[in-house]
């Protein structure tokens, strides 16, 4: 009889708190959005499932959750903590970038290099949000990690948080992925606000064809320049460009296929699941609740939305600014693609432009600031690492 009671004490039912129930519902909503609304399913689905798993309560002492390591006092490193190590050690994001690089075509950027400026301009969202986070009372390291949400790039956000503010990794990652999924809702109103109907109808000249040689040189140039400017961006930019070189070289198909397929998928599953499982509703470290359901998370979600908006503003306004000097005007809408959120924000641009001129295809042009934004936010992360490490 005692035994049954002891077992019941170890069940989740006995330890369930309201916070856990809320988080389990949040996890279910994420899964719903992933499956029914098709919002970033490759990420939101395992994240949502991870949120459920991470909020099944269990009696203290069992080595089950992502935070149960020998270092934190558990009798052994739990399985989930070993998976989570791939996140906190910062190794999954660069490996994911390796895979993304092996699948990304940078032609658009190569054929029209001046559009990288838009990708740079959108990163203003990162730095203004960093200031905003300081304003709300976050520490320097936390503020930098929160600011990077404005980079609209999951692996970059996770990488920077893992290096600077691992305790906020869960909310930062989830905010980043959520807003990336919501880009089609966030950006259009801002586009409408900042552009005139005439601007939206600007058509752009078809881009010239890029040679294989240029495509091969691109990753080498980018890694040298970006890393010389901001060595801290090496893990991200280095791996992204290695993947791209494997793809474009034409002699290592075998490697680029595996990088962009098996390796990417394995890392995606494990990273997303572990990030989800790190969102325990309440969690006490030295008596302080560092769980997911705290004011800090609320602040992070607010700042995340803010940073996506600022980034969109930045990209759009800078495109208009560039038009002051350019003979051949660019369509300022493509500035909004500078936030990254590859390739969603580029698709939003295309979709929005076609509402006003249904034969205006901007997707290819929007890809240039789109991928430049990825490099830009990796450099921004590198700057933060250089300053704060």
């Amino acid at each position: 009889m005692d035994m049954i009671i002891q077992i019941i004490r170890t069940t989740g039912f006995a330890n369930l708190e309201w916070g856990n129930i809320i988080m389990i519902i949040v996890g279910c909503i994420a899964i719903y959005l992933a499956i029914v609304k098709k919002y970033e399913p490759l990420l939101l689905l395992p994240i949502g499932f991870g949120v459920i798993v991470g909020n099944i309560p269990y009696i203290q002492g069992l080595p089950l959750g992502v935070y149960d390591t020998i270092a934190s006092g558990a009798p052994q490193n739990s399985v989930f903590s070993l998976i989570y190590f791939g996140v906190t050690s910062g190794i999954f994001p660069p490996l994911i970038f390796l895979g993304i690089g092996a699948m990304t075509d940078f032609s658009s950027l190569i054929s029209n290099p001046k559009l990288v400026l838009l990708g740079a301009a959108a990163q203003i969202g990162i730095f203004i949000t960093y200031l905003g986070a300081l304003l709300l009372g976050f520490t320097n390291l936390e503020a930098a990690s929160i600011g990077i949400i404005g980079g609209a790039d999951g692996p970059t956000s996770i990488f920077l948080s893992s290096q600077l503010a691992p305790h906020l990794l869960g909310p930062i990652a989830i905010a980043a992925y959520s807003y990336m999924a919501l880009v089609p809702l966030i950006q259009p109103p801002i586009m409408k606000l900042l552009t005139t109907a005439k601007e939206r109808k600007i058509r752009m000249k078809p881009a010239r064809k890029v040679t294989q040689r240029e495509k091969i040189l691109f990753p080498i140039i980018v890694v040298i320049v970006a890393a010389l400017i901001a060595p801290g961006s090496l893990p991200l930019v280095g791996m992204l460009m290695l993947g791209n070189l494997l793809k474009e070289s034409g002699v290592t198909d075998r490697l680029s296929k595996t990088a962009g397929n098996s390796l990417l998928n394995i890392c995606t599953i494990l990273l997303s699941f572990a990030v989800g499982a790190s969102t325990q509703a309440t969690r006490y470290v030295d008596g302080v609740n560092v769980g997911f359901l705290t004011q800090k998370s609320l602040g992070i979600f607010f700042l995340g939305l803010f940073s996506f908006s600022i980034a969109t503003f930045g990209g759009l306004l800078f495109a208009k600014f560039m038009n002051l000097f350019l003979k051949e005007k660019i369509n300022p809408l493509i500035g909004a693609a500078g936030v990254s959120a590859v390739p969603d924000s580029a698709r939003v641009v295309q979709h929005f432009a076609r509402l006003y001129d249904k034969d205006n295809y901007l997707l290819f042009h929007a890809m240039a600031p789109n991928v430049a934004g990825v490099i830009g936010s990796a450099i921004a992360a590198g700057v933060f690492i250089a300053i704060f490490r």
Partner: protein
Amino acid sequence: MIENILQNDGLNIALSGIIVVFAGLILIAVTIHLFNKFFEKLHRQTERQTAPPKPAEKQPIIKKTIPLTDEELVVIATAIECYRRIHFETLQSQITFKHGEQQSAWKSGQRFGQRLTITRKL
């Protein structure tokens, strides 16, 4: 909490940060641009002397070895296209595209080499 910004040297950091981002990307753009110019020039010089043999190498080996009538090619291409759509398409499109069907540079996914021009005729 404006003092939190001041204490942490926030404005300086933010300003320096955005400058470095711009510097980095501009430098990349300039370098790419210069290389493009350089190779263009080089290309124009070499063009007069010899026809480029590279495209032939890139072509799949099919042409060299299998002589086929147009109808056969259509049948084969259909089979391949059909097979491809069943097994690869969903996969492919889900990687990068979530809300649409339209063709694009991003989606073109030439890395799998699956897009034969001939299938487009169907």
